[in-house]
């Protein structure tokens, strides 16, 4: 190319293209303030974090927690379970319908105590098929949608994270490394503020062999006054301060703990559907 202006123009088009694609388009698609509702309910989602938890997000940001922790649940697939809810007037026909397609092992007694899972982990077409067979035989069955993936199996969340989960976060702390656990659902998994505080002060006391650095500067070690403080941490012996002293969390530590407790990813949404489980027995 001889023309300098042409170089500039082509570069402009190239960068302009990706700017439109990854800046303009996401802002126009997702940028508007939009709450959604929890699946099959009219409850809004998300509701904003309480004040202390919002401050906690700033403590999280200032200390760079996102350098080791992620806040995004991943889902590698979706599967259906078929739950039998009613045997109808002809239990043996329903049993045939369940058993004819090899769905259940031999039951010792039929009809069994309902509801019961008769098919596990299939795609939607197979599940619909099974429900049709059961309905034709006079029974009633439900399809439960289950999210699958290693994050789900580890109990790190019930379904993958979506844009609505981060609606009120600024800055969004998605994280990019899992040196520590994923925290998107930690409020449901570890809802004890005390556990969080002790873990912040001395991670190795709660998780032996942890690589997490102790955040002792978020706490105050002070002499026990006439009455021990109700906030004082109950630490194991190796990590406890010398006798006569207590460890009290500062405001920052409490805010961070409140923030961690507010992190949840366990409600079904239209773009991340799953069926809330009932008490269902398995074959």
């Amino acid at each position, binding site marked *: 190319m001889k023309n300098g202006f042409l170089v500039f123009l082509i570069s402009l088009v190239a960068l302009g293209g990706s700017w439109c694609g990854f800046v303009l388009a996401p802002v126009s698609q997702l940028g508007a303030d939009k709450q959604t509702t929890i*699946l099959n309910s*009219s409850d809004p989602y998300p509701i904003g974090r309480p004040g202390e938890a919002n401050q906690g997000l700033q403590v999280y940001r200032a200390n760079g927690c996102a350098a080791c922790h992620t806040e995004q649940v991943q889902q590698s697939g*979706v599967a259906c379970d078929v739950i039998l809810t009613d045997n109808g007037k002809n239990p043996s026909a329903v049993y045939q319908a369940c058993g004819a397609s090899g769905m259940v092992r031999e039951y010792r007694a039929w009809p069994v105590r309902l509801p019961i899972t008769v098919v596990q982990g299939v795609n939607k077409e197979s599940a619909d098929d099974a*429900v049709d067979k059961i309905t034709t035989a006079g029974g009633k069955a439900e*399809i439960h949608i289950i999210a699958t993936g290693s994050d789900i199996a580890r109990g790190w969340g019930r379904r993958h994270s979506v844009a609505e989960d981060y609606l009120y976060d600024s800055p969004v702390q998605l994280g990019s490394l899992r040196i520590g656990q994923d925290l998107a659902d930690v409020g449901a998994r570890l809802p004890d503020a005390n556990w969080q505080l002790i873990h912040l002060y001395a991670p190795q006391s709660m998780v032996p062999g942890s690589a997490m650095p102790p955040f002792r500067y978020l706490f105050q070690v002070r002499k026990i006054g006439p009455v021990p403080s109700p906030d004082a941490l109950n630490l194991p012996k190796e990590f406890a301060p010398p006798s006569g002293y207590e460890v009290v969390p500062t405001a920052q530590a409490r805010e961070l703990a409140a923030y961690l407790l507010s992190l949840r990813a366990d409600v079904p949404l239209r773009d991340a559907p799953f*069926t809330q489980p009932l008490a269902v027995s398995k074959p």
Partner: protein
Amino acid sequence: MSDETKSNPPQPSDTGPAVMRSTVPISIILLTLLLLFLGMVYFDHHGGWFDSQVYGPYTSADQLESYQPRSGEAAILAQGKARYEQVCGLCHGLDGLGKPGQAPPLAGSEWVDTKGFERLTHIPLAGVNGQLSVKGQMWSLSMPAMGAAMSDEELAGVLTYIRSSWGNKGGPVTADEVKAARAALGTHPQPMSGDQMSKLPE
């Protein structure tokens, strides 16, 4: 390491190194075109066509729709809610509080919160014309038979949704009940007035 200036051979020109002008191998251009094509096919299969609701692992809006939990009461309510918002909510309000001069409220209405279902099923199937008293207020409007075009299941879902929302505690309405009401009204039902409605059993 020898000083570079001593050992470097003389440069072709002061502007910089010389440049050959041989052509680009055709194979790399063909590779680009092939990859562009494959990329487009990949986007077609996995991109969800820019839908804001489709997240991985779902690959299309239809697939996401098919995986919405449907069975049981929850599903009927969801469908009923969707239909209500499309058809009835424009006049009766998404919050069931009605609009003055347009439609009476449904929340806490004695026409909705009934023990039975006959009166309620007649309203959308036949329509209303004339005076009707709702929650102590007199309404003098006409309502077309908005439910006549719906199927029995759809209307049953809408009525079930109305009867269980905004504080209403009525039980569900089944498709069979709607079917029976439709049959009782005949092929071309006339809109009923408030007096005629009150004469119907609850």
